[in-house]
């Protein structure tokens, strides 16, 4: 059938590099945004154009890519024990992801030739643009050895050393039903319907082989990978994550985000590790907190977002001007032996909790080359002394190894792992 979904306009020709992505390394994965000068207006213009981010490249899109506005994140349990079935699914998913990220419907489309059969595509993205949709897959520890220690797919020996079981941190209150997962898919797009459509169709294609374990919708990106842009505010009204790694800073990406060939294992070279934490905020008590305390807790001023004792949002922070328990001070690379992680979190509000309180907070997503000198030491420090702990609680947690990019039409998600 003819594809009724809109493809991005000719603008794509200006900003997407198609097959040339490989030569451009990290920048290719940065996709649309990386092709531009990186100033905020341009990123906004690309977002408004509904352009497509190239799916193929050395790294998966959705990591260094300029952060989109919306998120639908899903963690899956693999329900089949059949390795061949899992591989077939990953190939099918790759095909569907390639199509959806370029603004096309999956399979035979949303309106099939046969009225008696359900259409392949669920249809709610018909007529919508690609909206910079990226789909990023990750493999959890339980894919390699399940909770009973069983090597279901013959890949136990390929589990990376750095794919640890995250330690318990003080103050954690993790709900098992919102934690872990054999696989994850992060869908980011500027249009929430496009992100939801993508996860919904992957889940449907996967039925019988995988089942959604938990999922999370997110809005209002809380981090930016485009450094000149205004840092978005989190649900507490603060700009957090100002000193994020830029999607265009390939030196920093190579050093802190991408797994190097030397660090191993070979199948993960060019990949990354993703930590996902559902962080519930006690919004109501926070809102009753004096401005001074709020600013002391973060170590920033609320209006401008400048570090305490500085004028502008992007001024280098003077950590000593902050309280020793200030969030920014504790999370800063200088307090953590230079450790930097690429944050890509989103705000969430999932209705209310039955006690009349908003079920809201930050769905923290962070990419790094090794959690053992990234998220783990930073979170240890935060969990112990961060003044913010009075107002937040970590209620969901997962860690995934994120394979490198899909190189071309013959490649598929996780090929190197299963070869």
């Amino acid at each position: 059938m003819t594809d009724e979904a809109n493809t991005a306009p000719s603008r794509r020709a200006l900003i997407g590099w198609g097959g040339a992505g490989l030569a451009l390394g990290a920048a290719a994965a940065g996709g649309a945004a990386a092709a531009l000068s990186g100033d905020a207006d341009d990123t906004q213009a690309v977002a408004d154009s509904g352009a497509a981010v190239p799916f193929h490249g050395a790294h998966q899109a959705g990591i260094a890519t300029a952060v989109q506005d919306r998120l639908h994140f899903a963690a899956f349990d693999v329900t089949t024990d059949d390795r061949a079935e899992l591989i077939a699914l990953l190939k099918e998913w790759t095909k569907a992801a390639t199509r959806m990220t370029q603004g096309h419907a999956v399979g035979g489309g949303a309106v099939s030739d046969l009225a008696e059969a359900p259409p392949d595509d669920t249809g709610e993205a018909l007529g919508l643009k690609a909206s910079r949709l990226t789909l990023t897959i990750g493999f959890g520890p339980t894919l390699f050895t399940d909770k009973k220690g069983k090597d279901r797919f013959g890949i136990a020996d390929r589990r990376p050393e750095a794919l640890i079981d995250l330690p318990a941190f003080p103050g954690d209150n993790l709900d098992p039903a919102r934690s872990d997962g054999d696989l994850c898919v992060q869908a980011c797009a500027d249009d929430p319907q496009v992100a939801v459509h993508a996860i919904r169709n992957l889940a449907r294609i996967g039925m019988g082989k995988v089942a959604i374990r938990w999922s999370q919708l997110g809005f209002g990106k809380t981090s930016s990978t485009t450094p000149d842009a205004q840092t978005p505010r989190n649900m507490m009204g603060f700009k957090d994550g100002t000193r994020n790694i830029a999607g265009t800073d390939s030196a920093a990406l190579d050093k802190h985000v991408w797994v190097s060939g030397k660090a191993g294992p070979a199948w993960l070279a060019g990949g990354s590790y993703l930590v996902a934490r559902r962080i519930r905020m006690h919004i109501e008590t926070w809102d009753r907190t004096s401005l001074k305390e709020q600013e002391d807790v973060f170590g920033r001023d609320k209006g401008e977002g400048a570090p305490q004792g500085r004028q502008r949002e992007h001024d280098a922070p003077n950590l000593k001007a902050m309280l020793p328990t200030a969030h920014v001070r504790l999370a800063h690379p200088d307090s953590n032996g230079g450790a930097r992680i690429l944050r890509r979190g989103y705000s969430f509000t999932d209705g209310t909790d039955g006690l009349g309180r908003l079920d809201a907070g930050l769905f923290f997503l962070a990419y790094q080359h090794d959690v053992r000198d990234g998220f783990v030491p930073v979170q240890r420090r935060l969990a112990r002394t961060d003044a913010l702990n009075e107002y937040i609680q970590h209620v969901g947690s997962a860690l995934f190894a994120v394979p490198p990019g899909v190189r071309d039409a013959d490649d598929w998600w996780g090929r190197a792992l299963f070869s």
Partner: protein
Amino acid sequence: MRAARTSVVAAISALTTITAVAGCAQKSDAKDSDAIQVTASDSACEVSKTSFPAGHVKFAVENKGSKVTEVYVYAPGDRIVTERENIGPGTSASINAEVKTGSYEIACKPGMKGHGIRQKVSATGKGNPAKRDPKLDKAVAAYRTYAQKQADDTLPAVQKFADAVKKDDLEGAKKLYAPSRIGWERTEPVAESFGDIDPKVDVREDGLEKGQKWTGWHRLEKSLWQTKKITAADHDLADQLIKDLKDWQKRVGTADITPTGMANGAKELLDEVQTGKVTGEEERYSHTDLVDFEGNVEGAETSYKLLKPVAAKNDPELAKELDKQFAAVGKLLDQYREGDGFVSYDTVSESQRKKLSDAVNALAEPLSRLAAAVVTK
């Protein structure tokens, strides 16, 4: 039952048969020039012919209005013969049907609601049903026999249940309740196609319309498990249930069953499981949901097994997948067997229910492609 639904299994009088397939899915004997043009707008529903020979009929629908519309073909008593929903402004759709001699009404429903704008039409002559694969004819005949047997076997089981109610034997009636429902659950899409019986015997409290008297199995279920008291009113309800089910038993034989109707009926049975049984809504007082669950799955599997000779030829991969997923659901259900029934559903934990739900999804998704495998040439 679900609160409201349009059954794929066409409902059924001795007078009509339909095989609704999309225009391009099947070679049809009706040429486009023979098609009956249905021109729908926001305020009109014009048909190019009000009388046509019975047999294979094609309706070519064009929506010239500004609203999304749907087109229904009704037999007397507003029984749906076939229908097409979601025909957008400026778009066309075609509906094929096998119709026997008789009177019908074509209804266009701009905005997809209400009584619609209606035109009376009639099918004349003796009708020549389209040639069908004899294997499919065999499947339909076998399914008809199966549906009849389920109704025939239900009556004595319901009689026992009703007798216990009328003897005020609370514990006895509770034991006999779930088994009396199995035949109905196995053939639910056919049973529900009798739009006047279903609301009398299988309606839940939340499904009642304003002014509708609550009767049937679930009303008695509430007395037995919730109020734990059998009253004179319950005696009458038991008699009424027998009477209504005898009506069903009598009419099953006239049910018009088509291969695609069987296939989509199987998928509908899994819908029933997914939306009513897995959630524990269907048997909210008795918690006998797993008995219904098994009945629904058995009915779906029967449809599939009968269609398999054709489906497996057209789509061997699909047949393999369905065999596997039916087995998986069966194995999972086995974990909950107790005595000659199942454990009470309120003892099944949230995470166990999720496993059941995942298994139902894994089966229902390929099952939704069975109809295509039956009509593919």
